[in-house]
């Protein structure tokens, strides 16, 4: 244990601060091999993480890198640098602090490798890149501590797995390395601790005083929330009133599209011109930075934002957090509110604003859960092997390696402790030869074994390509949006390629809070003009979509069973009564299905309450069976509580569709050909290094430089069905996008008890789904039928049908030969 040197006590005293108990505890346990601190934001958590480092550096001069700080966000690294530099400068400590992210200039990066600072602040991806250099052992020599900030956020994604593999490497280079994790409140601290520590080391968990319980309520408005929809426009006057009554308000949304619409409506109503900004991941970086800077200067009264503002950046004096839309997950709600409010020992104040009446129910259920302190979460699975493949390639970039030593090192990472040697060897073989049953690449192996048994890159030049593809974050293909005739001007932001493809000239959509008119596509840039239209066509660019947790879903169904709903606002209670009247409410232990015509299609809503991903999988499985039954399904959309399927023909008998054994038995074959598997394959194949990311250059030419990864998937499935990547894809899909566990849970809950309601029109409960984004097309017989119809129409309209093709010129076909 180290005592706090006088320079520190003096400095704390000069600020009128006392050392928090958890800060001195961190100092006392500075020599623990691993230590996890769970503390609210604003409680001096970062300083607690760095205090042992600063004390150590103040007492003993240190050559080179002493402490590595990892955060999930680039912005956070920059922020911490600022916050840490203040005490270091004021105490006159001989400590050099630098950050290193994708935005750091190349010259500085180079110098950092030759002459590293005492404290380096970076991200998991930048760290992985650093470990890929041959001089990594020299750069990390003498490293004593690593601090992983917001570790609970990293724990939820493959970025965390990549980081822990990199820490395994650092630990081998520096056996005495101490690990510190900083986390917000989580439901299972031990799980995070096991992830942080070197396996099988123990890791103590320090719990800081969580501070007063948050003050969370649901916003009450004069106007009732709409029957459906997600934009919460009804709440604008009430939200404006709240913004007026507080210094700084953060208005969180679950998706970017919702944030855009809300911001637009807020401005239309903002007659006194309160300074309000918008911030989300689709906006251009310069725009985001401008908003961040204005926020830090205290010039904004409110920011409409998404998860891009979710992490613990210091936003100054935020005194109110408003969550628009149901929170989906109680833990995330608590973390979001706790983090945005940076005043220690003052209760966080938050308001929930349901966007529609279903969300009223969800919000009330979530508030109950918060009050009871019931956090939710799903256990994390074992370490993904696509990330391991990338780690093997990164290792090879740094120089020849011994397979057994690497296997031992990987086994010290908690998530990979159960990885068998055979599994490891399969990953190594994949990296070396592609791992195909047809041994086609013996001559062109990526990794070769040297005479002394070490593995190394066959062609050292391939290191550059591997480095360019480091990372586990999957970008969707996006296109920049610019104002027409301002080429070279600043882009307004980005939209998904798929969304751009649905636009016709004249269509309007929202971006950066303004309505623009689509003019055309030019060199893979969406060109738009300003437009004063009132009602835009919505941009569907992706925001993060979370699945409502099992616990929260169960609370909602339980609430449905009440005779009356005194805990709900009258409008929502009336809506549930109406549903009970025209159809029925979902019951525990039963499955409600509604069929009705709408929009010229036959629609079927299945209320499985299996979470968004589970309901999505259910959609895939059911449409596949409906295709086989000749019901011509065209597509489906999933929400957290239901799946809506539409098609050309009506479903009359749902029972045979829901036998769990049949669902499970056919899962593998059913999944094989579907879009979710292909999407998962693409992600895993990119991470594992089979395919390279699309470069913007390649897409610019309009020529597909590479053919689609779907072709690779189909080919592998046909000729090499046992290939490692298909195995990885299945594993990933089953626990991630597929979430079959929730379907099994549903099927067991329901056990064949189905209530099928055939209605003449959409029911109150089903209405919100008609407006949901993220529709999944079914490419079956219906597609051929639509194609034939449209082709006939086009030929007729263009007059070409009269001209060509003579002589017997109607398109014709027959099936089979």
């Amino acid at each position: 244990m180290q005592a706090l040197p006088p320079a520190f006590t003096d400095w704390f005293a000069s600020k009128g601060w006392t050392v928090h108990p958890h800060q001195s505890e961190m100092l006392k346990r500075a020599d623990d091999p691993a230590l996890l601190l769970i503390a609210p934001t604003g409680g001096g958590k970062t300083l607690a993480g760095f205090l042992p480092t600063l004390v150590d550096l103040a007492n003993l001069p240190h050559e080179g890198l002493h402490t590595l700080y990892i955060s999930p966000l680039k912005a956070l690294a920059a922020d911490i640098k600022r916050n840490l530099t203040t005490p270091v400068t004021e105490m006159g400590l001989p400590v050099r602090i630098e950050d290193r992210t994708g935005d750091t200039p190349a010259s500085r990066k180079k110098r950092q490798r030759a002459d590293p600072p005492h404290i380096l602040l970076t991200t998991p991806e930048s760290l992985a890149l650093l470990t890929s250099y041959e001089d990594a052992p020299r750069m990390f020599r003498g490293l004593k501590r690593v601090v992983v900030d917001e570790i609970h956020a990293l724990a939820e994604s493959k970025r965390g797995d990549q980081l822990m593999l990199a820490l395994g490497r650092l630990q081998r280079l520096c056996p005495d390395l101490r690990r510190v994790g900083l986390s917000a409140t989580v439901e299972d601290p031990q799980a995070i601790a096991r992830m942080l520590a070197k396996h099988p080391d123990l890791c103590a968990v320090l719990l800081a005083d969580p501070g007063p319980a948050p003050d969370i309520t649901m916003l009450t408005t004069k106007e009732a929330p709409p029957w459906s929809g997600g934009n919460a426009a009804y709440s604008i006057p009430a939200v404006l009133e709240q913004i007026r009554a507080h210094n700084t308000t953060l208005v969180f949304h679950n998706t970017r599209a919702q944030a855009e619409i809300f911001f637009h409506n807020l401005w239309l109503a903002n007659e006194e011109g309160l300074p309000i900004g918008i911030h989300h991941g689709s906006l251009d970086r310069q725009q985001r930075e401008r908003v961040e800077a204005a926020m830090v200067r205290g010039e904004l009264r409110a920011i409409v934002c998404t998860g891009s503002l979710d992490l613990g950046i210091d936003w100054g004096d935020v005194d109110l957090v408003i969550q628009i839309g149901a929170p989906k997950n109680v833990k995330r709600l608590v973390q979001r509110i706790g983090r945005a409010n940076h005043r220690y020992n003052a209760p966080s104040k938050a308001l929930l604003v349901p966007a529609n009446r279903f969300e009223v129910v969800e919000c009330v259920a979530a508030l109950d859960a918060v009050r009871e302190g019931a956090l939710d979460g799903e256990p994390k699975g074992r370490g993904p092997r696509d990330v391991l493949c990338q780690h093997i390639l990164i290792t090879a970039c740094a120089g020849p390696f011994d397979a057994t030593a690497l296997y031992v090192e990987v086994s010290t990472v908690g998530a990979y402790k159960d990885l068998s040697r055979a599994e490891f060897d399969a990953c190594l073989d994949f990296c070396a030869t592609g791992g195909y049953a047809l041994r086609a690449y013996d001559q062109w192996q990526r990794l070769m074994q040297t005479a002394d048994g070490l593995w190394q890159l066959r062609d050292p030049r391939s290191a550059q390509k591997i480095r360019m593809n480091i990372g586990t974050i999957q970008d969707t293909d996006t296109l920049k949006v610019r104002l027409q005739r301002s080429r070279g001007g600043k882009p307004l932001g980005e939209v998904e390629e798929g969304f751009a493809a649905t636009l016709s000239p004249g269509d309007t959509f929202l971006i950066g809070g303004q309505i623009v008119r689509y003019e055309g596509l030019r060199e893979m840039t969406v060109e738009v003009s300003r437009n004063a239209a009132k009602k835009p066509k919505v941009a569907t660019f992706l925001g993060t979509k979370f699945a409502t947790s099992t616990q929260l879903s169960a609370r909602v169904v339980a609430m449905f069973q009440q005779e009356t709903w005194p805990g709900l606002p009258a409008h929502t209670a009336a809506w549930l009564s109406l549903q009970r009247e025209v159809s029925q409410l979902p019951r525990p232990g039963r499955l409600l299905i509604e069929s009705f015509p709408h929009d010229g299609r036959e629609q079927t809503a299945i209320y499985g309450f299996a979470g968004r991903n589970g309901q999505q999988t259910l959609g895939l499985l059911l449409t596949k069976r409906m295709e086989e039954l000749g019901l011509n399904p065209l597509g489906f959309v999933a929400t957290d509580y239901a799946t809506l399927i539409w098609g050309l023909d009506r479903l009359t008998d749902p029972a045979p569709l829901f036998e769990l054994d049949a669902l499970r038995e056919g899962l593998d074959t059913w999944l094989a050909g579907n879009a979710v598997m292909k999407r998962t394959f693409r992600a895993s194949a990119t991470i594992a290094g089979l395919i390279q990311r699309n470069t913007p250059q390649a897409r610019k030419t309009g020529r597909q430089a590479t053919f689609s990864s779907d072709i690779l998937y189909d080919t592998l499935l046909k000729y090499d069905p046992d290939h490692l990547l298909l195995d990885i894809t299945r594993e990933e899909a089953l626990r991630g996008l597929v979430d079959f566990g929730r379907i099994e849970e549903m099927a067991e809950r329901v056990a064949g008890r189905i209530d099928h309601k055939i209605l003449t029109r959409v029911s109150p409960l089903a209405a919100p789904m008609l407006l949901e984004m993220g529709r999944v097309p079914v490419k079956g017989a219906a597609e051929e039928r639509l194609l034939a119809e449209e082709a006939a129409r086009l030929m007729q309209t263009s007059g070409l049908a009269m001209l060509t093709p003579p002589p017997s010129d109607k398109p014709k076909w027959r099936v089979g030969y």
Partner: protein
Amino acid sequence: MNYHDFRFAGAALRALGSGALWWPDEDLLCVSDLHFGKSERVARRSGQHLPPYETRDTLLRLSADLEATRARRVICLGDSFDDLTAATSLTEEEQLWIATLQAGREWVWIEGNHDPGPQGFGGTHLAEFVTGPLTFRHIAAPHGTGEVSGHYHPKAHVQTRGRRVTRPAFLCDAQRLILPAYGTYTGGLRSYSDTLCRLMQPGALAILTGPVPTCVPMPRQEMTR
């Protein structure tokens, strides 16, 4: 087998859903841009290990078309091999397979930019081939008429009710017919690209491949309704 019948330069032709062109009167099957050996070339040049099964997949589809049409003459319209080295590095099984398909058939290899010389397989190697009203060459010539070519890997799209369908496609006007790429690992060039718009006359048609070959006016703009 599904097909779309049409007439080009006086010849009655049939676009097959697989992307092959069948000329019944001449017993002639034409396929373009097979790109045999692509995965090997990619591995050799970039170290990327694509699933090495595209040659057998392409051969499997070609065998099916040959069997269905009982073609006596075959024209491979260039870029049959991803490069000349790829031609020699096919597996023995694949080489034998090609030889089996060639047996008893008149077989013409048109040279392409990827395979600009003989590659060691039987058959006739030509820069272009003329028969009846049609001229077969790899890349469309500036003033070609009755010309059948490949090279561009054209794709076309149709915006149906709420869904956009994009597939490899034949492009056809009064002068030219451009075939889609037949090989399994082949990307495509959109029909609305400047190159294809300049090449094809107004009134050109696109025949989308797939389970049901579908004929539409050639899309010349990215967005149609």
